[in-house]
């Protein structure tokens, strides 16, 4: 069998198994093992499986994944979200749609301690949704601001997808974190700008909060409610950029301080802890099994030489950069419709990354693009995780409310991608300052 044919057969088999409903991790493993057996035989071929499993499962960088999930689980019920949202709401309540703006900014600030989109949406949503419902906010506005705001959790550092991207492509996680900051702030401002515009167009959908209950003194006083979050930001990001700790160690320190904060707030019960344990273990087992078997699969694809062949073909096409990038991005948007996005990233990276960097795109820049793409996936049906979370937290919200609410943010995210393509320095300037030193 020729190599091109073998590659095509394996990829077709993979998608067939996906379509038949086999677990993604197992499907990757099955096709990978069949490929290895065909290419290298029983002894040599299978030996690779064990060593790939070992290398990935004991990677110290990947230790940060369960740590950030665990930290989110502890913070969810710690009351830290309430303090943050209350304080931010006091400062931005004067704006049209103030409470929805507060949702977005609270998500953006919480994103600086959270590595996950779902956890950010859930932590802030739990507090913000009842508040906005009580004030009679339009439901799509509530759902959209939180589902989209939550996705800032993975763009603003720390970020679980950036950890996975960094390890898989051997890109510095610290630089990826840095690179996410400016796009994260830009996106938060775009979101907030949209909410303000929306509330000015339809003032009845975002009733104003009475202005007089918010004196400057109240505002300043409310700052102390943000203290726990500020402390966590210093612990998680500060320690890392002072060069004291690695990204994984920062995650452990963050978890430790979260436990202390929850204990001080008397919110650290056995129930909370057990729930955090199980959700951490579920996410870790699921994601890491996919990573392990995706690595087996991509090992086979690399043995065949598929990425190089693909690169040669694409270079031969002689397409302009923007056209090529548009095709790749559109392809990703389509494929994300059927599969859970993080899995798509893990499966596609070994093929996509050599292609993209081979064509001269920057690895850090592409990492940020992948993250924004993940954000889009998190708020688009049918498998957008944030949609499920926010719909679950909003009593009576329909799928239509969610669709109506999130669509404008999808457009804003696509605008951001275009912006980052035209001005890559939005991504690359900040990490360059760090590399320079």
């Amino acid at each position, binding site marked *: 069998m020729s190599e091109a044919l073998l590659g095509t057969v394996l990829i077709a088999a993979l998608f067939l198994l996906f379509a038949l409903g086999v677990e993604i991790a197992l499907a990757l493993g099955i096709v990978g093992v069949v490929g290895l057996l065909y290419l290298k035989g029983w002894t040599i071929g299978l030996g690779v499986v064990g060593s790939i499993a070992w290398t990935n*499962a004991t990677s*110290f960088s990947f230790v940060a994944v369960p740590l950030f999930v665990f930290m989110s689980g502890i913070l969810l019920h710690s009351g830290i979200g309430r303090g943050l949202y209350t304080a931010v709401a006091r400062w931005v309540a004067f704006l049209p749609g103030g409470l929805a703006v507060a949702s977005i900014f609270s998500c953006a600030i919480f994103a600086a301690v959270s590595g996950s989109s779902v956890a950010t949406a859930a932590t802030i949503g739990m507090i913000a949704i009842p508040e906005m419902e009580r004030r009679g906010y339009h439901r799509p506005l509530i759902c959209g601001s939180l589902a989209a705001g939550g996705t800032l959790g993975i763009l603003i550092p720390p970020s679980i997808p950036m950890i996975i991207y960094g390890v898989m492509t051997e890109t510095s996680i610290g630089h990826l974190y840095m690179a996410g900051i400016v796009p994260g702030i830009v996106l938060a401002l775009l979101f907030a700008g949209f909410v303000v515009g929306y509330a000015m167009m339809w003032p009845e959908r975002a009733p104003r909060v009475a202005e007089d209950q918010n004196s400057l003194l109240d505002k300043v006083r409310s700052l102390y409610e943000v203290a726990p979050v500020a402390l966590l930001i210093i612990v998680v990001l500060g320690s890392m950029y002072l060069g004291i700790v690695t990204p994984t160690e920062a995650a452990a320190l963050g978890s430790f301080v979260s436990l202390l904060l929850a204990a001080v707030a008397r919110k650290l019960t056995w129930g909370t802890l057990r729930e955090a344990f199980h959700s*951490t*273990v*579920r996410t870790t*087992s699921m994601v890491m099994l996919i990573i392990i078997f995706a690595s087996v699969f991509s090992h086979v694809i690399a043995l065949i030489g598929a990425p190089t062949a693909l690169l040669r073909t694409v270079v031969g096409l002689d397409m302009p950069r923007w056209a090529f990038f548009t095709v790749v991005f559109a392809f990703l948007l389509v494929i994300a419709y059927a599969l859970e996005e993080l899995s798509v990233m893990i499966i596609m990276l070994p093929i996509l990354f050599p292609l993209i960097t081979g064509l001269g795109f920057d690895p850090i820049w592409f990492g940020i693009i992948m993250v924004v793409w993940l954000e889009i996936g998190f708020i688009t049906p049918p498998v957008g995780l944030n949609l499920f979370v926010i719909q679950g937290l909003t009593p009576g919200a329909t799928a239509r409310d969610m669709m109506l609410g999130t669509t404008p943010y999808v457009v804003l995210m696509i605008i951001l991608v275009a912006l980052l393509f035209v001005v890559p320095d939005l991504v690359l300037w900040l990490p360059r300052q760090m590399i320079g030193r």
Partner: protein
Amino acid sequence: MISSVARAASTLAGVAVLAIVVLITYDVAMRYLFEQPQLFVDEVASFLELFVIFAGLAYTFRTGSHVRVDLLTGRLPGRARGWLRLSGLVLGLVFLAIVIWTTAQSAVTAYRYGRVSAVMLYPLWAPMALIPLGLVLLGVVMVVALGAQLRALRTSRPDEVPPPESGG
């Protein structure tokens, strides 16, 4: 019975996460405050990570948390969906058997040649054995799911059996 074993393994894995948090915090504190880096921590944390992944596999399966695509199968008639699930489980189990065999071989080899870790010289066979052990536990819960699926196919309204434990 198997339900409580899978759940206990997951709880234990959760405790391992807590242990990682404490160990790394201790290491950072000792290194930063007293300039005494604790060299064992990185290796122990990595082994604990491996434990978290593989001890959690079975419970993760029982809660239906291993991601699958149901876009197409969701539109099939119940009987076809049930048979597809059955075939998927059989295929998965065959694959799992192969991986268990090869990873167990690696652990045995590591034991026989006395392979040790790079920094602390810990024997590697023990953490390596966790991989096939966790996969065996996953295999057992998959066999249980296979049995349930077979029984469901013999009933008057056959369909795919949902995961036994969701959430929590």
